[in-house]
């Protein structure tokens, strides 16, 4: 890609100096920097926002305010610089200096951790940052939790639309099944309800039963997905798109007509088991980890072989039918789990929240981020969600701006931002480096 613009030379020098200063800063230093920014925001954010005339503490770095009052742009820039950029860069710089002073002595325990320990430590760090950031407002907390749900949905859809190369639009349908199954299980078990009677188990068990309910919800969703999978895998092409669309509408109108589940009025009273960010964070990490494992295994890569040339895959000993089934049912399972999470985050579900719009939204995230990419799915979901929150002040116009952005992305990068490629995430990277090392050190022959 070529750059079509040049920065003025003064700025360019500053940028070069900045880059030089922050080159090969270890990831732990960056994480500390981000934590510093979040803490500074918690300390002075509210007051500074008031002084600068931004009103309440802006939820998304003040970016959505631009669309409300453009005159505030300088104040917003000051706010971003003082609250986020300067603390983050400063703390990163200090930590790096400190680490250099200790010449690796202080933090060698981090290097000595096993790969999984290193990954868990960094994930915990990320969680702490997100936790502090989310504690500023309920709105942020809600957005972050829905973001987790959407990441699961997008990645699971990527299995079918990306790796397997078919086109599924039934995400919302799978979500609905998962949401209703999980809700019914939890309400039946832990809530005194007029339909399902008094609670069967003590309410204090609910948080521990929730994972089981989610897994059952996912499994039930996968079983209903068989109804789509069995007939549609005999052919290729548009067939799956049509039958998944049908599935979604059948599911939606079924729930609209099941009276004891509230029909079109919806179903509520879910116990509050997904109130904390931690629950959603753990499920998101688990889902991403499991699907990442699958698509990086040779067994899972065979899914792409089926997409690129099915007869050749079949000849090269790949059981294509099984491969397609696994990809589709995994998609259904995780969509169901995400639906169950969604129901307990929102605390209220009705059939119309699982319509075509929901599917289209997830498809948008998927194609924005890029097919065949785990990090792409995450990036696409985050960008799409951020965009849709930041552009909220534009109201209806938002739904003209976002599609235009999507179209521009599709023209510039037809496979999505990260289609068919992964960015390396340094805080998860060490395992890969270590595995390579083991390969090169392994003795030749068995």
């Amino acid at each position, binding site marked *: 890609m070529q750059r079509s613009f040049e920065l003025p030379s003064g700025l360019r020098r500053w940028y070069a100096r900045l880059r030089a200063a922050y080159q090969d800063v270890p990831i732990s230093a960056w994480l500390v920097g981000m934590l510093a920014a979040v803490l500074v925001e918690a300390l002075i954010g509210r007051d500074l926002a008031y002084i600068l005339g931004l009103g309440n503490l802006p939820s998304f770095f003040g970016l959505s305010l631009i669309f409300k009052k453009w005159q505030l742009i300088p104040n917003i820039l000051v706010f971003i610089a003082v609250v986020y950029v300067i603390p983050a860069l400063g703390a990163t710089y200090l930590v790096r200096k400190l680490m250099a002073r200790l010449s690796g002595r202080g933090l060698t325990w981090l290097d000595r951790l096993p790969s999984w320990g290193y990954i868990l430590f960094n994930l915990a760090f990320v969680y702490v940052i997100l936790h502090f950031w989310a504690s500023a407002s309920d709105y942020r907390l809600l957005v972050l939790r829905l973001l987790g749900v959407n990441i699961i949905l997008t990645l699971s859809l990527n299995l079918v639309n990306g790796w397997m190369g078919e086109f599924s639009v039934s995400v919302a349908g799978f979500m609905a099944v998962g949401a209703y199954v999980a809700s019914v299980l939890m309400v039946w078990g832990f809530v005194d309800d007029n339909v399902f009677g008094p609670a069967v188990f003590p309410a204090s068990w609910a948080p521990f039963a929730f994972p089981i309910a989610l897994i059952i919800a996912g499994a039930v969703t996968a079983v209903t997905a068989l109804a789509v999978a069995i007939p549609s895998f005999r052919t290729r092409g548009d067939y799956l798109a049509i039958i998944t669309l049908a599935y979604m509408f059948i599911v939606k109108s079924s729930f609209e007509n099941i009276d004891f589940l509230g029909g079109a009025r919806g179903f509520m009273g879910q116990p509050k088991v997904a109130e904390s960010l931690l629950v959603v964070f753990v499920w998101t990490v688990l889902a991403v980890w*499991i699907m990442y*494992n*699958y698509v990086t*295994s*040779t*067994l*899972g*890569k*065979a899914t*792409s*072989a089926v*997409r*690129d*040339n099915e*007869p*050749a*895959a*079949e*000849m*090269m*000993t*790949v*059981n*294509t039918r099984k491969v397609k089934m*696994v990809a589709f049912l995994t998609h259904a399972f995780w969509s169901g789990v995400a639906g169950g999470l969604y129901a307990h985050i929102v605390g209220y579900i009705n059939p119309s929240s699982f319509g075509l719009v929901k599917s289209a939204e997830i498809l948008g995230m998927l194609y924005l981020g890029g097919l*065949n990419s785990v990090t792409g799915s995450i990036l696409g979901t985050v960008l799409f969600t951020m965009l849709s929150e930041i552009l909220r002040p534009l109201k209806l116009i938002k739904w003209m701006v976002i599609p235009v952005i999507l179209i521009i992305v599709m023209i510039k990068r037809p496979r999505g931002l990260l289609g*068919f490629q992964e960015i390396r995430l340094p805080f998860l990277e060490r395992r890969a480096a270590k*595995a390579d090392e*083991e*390969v090169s050190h*392994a003795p*030749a022959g*068995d």
Partner: protein
Amino acid sequence: MPLLEIKNLTHFFGGLRAVHNFNTRIEPGEIRGLIGPNGAGKTTVFNLTTGVYKPTEGQIIFDGQDITGKPPHQIGKLGISRTYQNLRLWGNLTALDNVKIAFYGRIRYGLLGAFFGINGRYEEERRIDREARELMALLGIEGYADMVVSGLPYGIQRKVEMARALATRPKLLLLDEPTAGMTPAEMEETMEFVLYIRDTFNLTIWLIEHKMRFVMGLCHWIQVLNFGEIIAEGTPQEVQNNPEVIRAYLGTAVT
């Protein structure tokens, strides 16, 4: 005992008789040729042998086992592999992944290993990675391992396809026009290459080819197919001088 025995193979596409009463016995270590004009049904015979189509009639016995009507992935596991007339690589994947996926039938860690990284998955993945790279090194294409296969030169793609076919550890390798689109010099090279892989991997080879020099130079026994039927068979010399074969290829003189 022959490695592959085909008895009275007949196949119809709707009302069209594509293959009629095809018989063959291929001994281990042999290089067998199947020639004939365009549309004679050569590739159909390969497709029937590898299970792409289920034969209307007839029996296919491979290595003492009846494989008639089995799906290709099982036939592939039993030890038949093939390359295609028009390359059928998995274009979005790297050359290495193309080869590695052909290990699918022998992967032992199963779905649980794939999802949760257990059942010795990482050891097995490392072993597959090593074996695939070794195989590519034997064919002289290890330098292309990490490149996306659709961007590679045609000759290299052919070798990647060969490496992929060999990764299933076949006993019998079917080559469908291995020199399609090659210059005479490349063809000579491919002839040596076919002999090399036969000796290195202890293979029996059955090939379809149009280029007479190639077929005549390599094959021990040749069968000629026309309109789905064998019209002649024999050693290269016998076939070359057979008037039926000449007529099938060149037509008859107008009188």
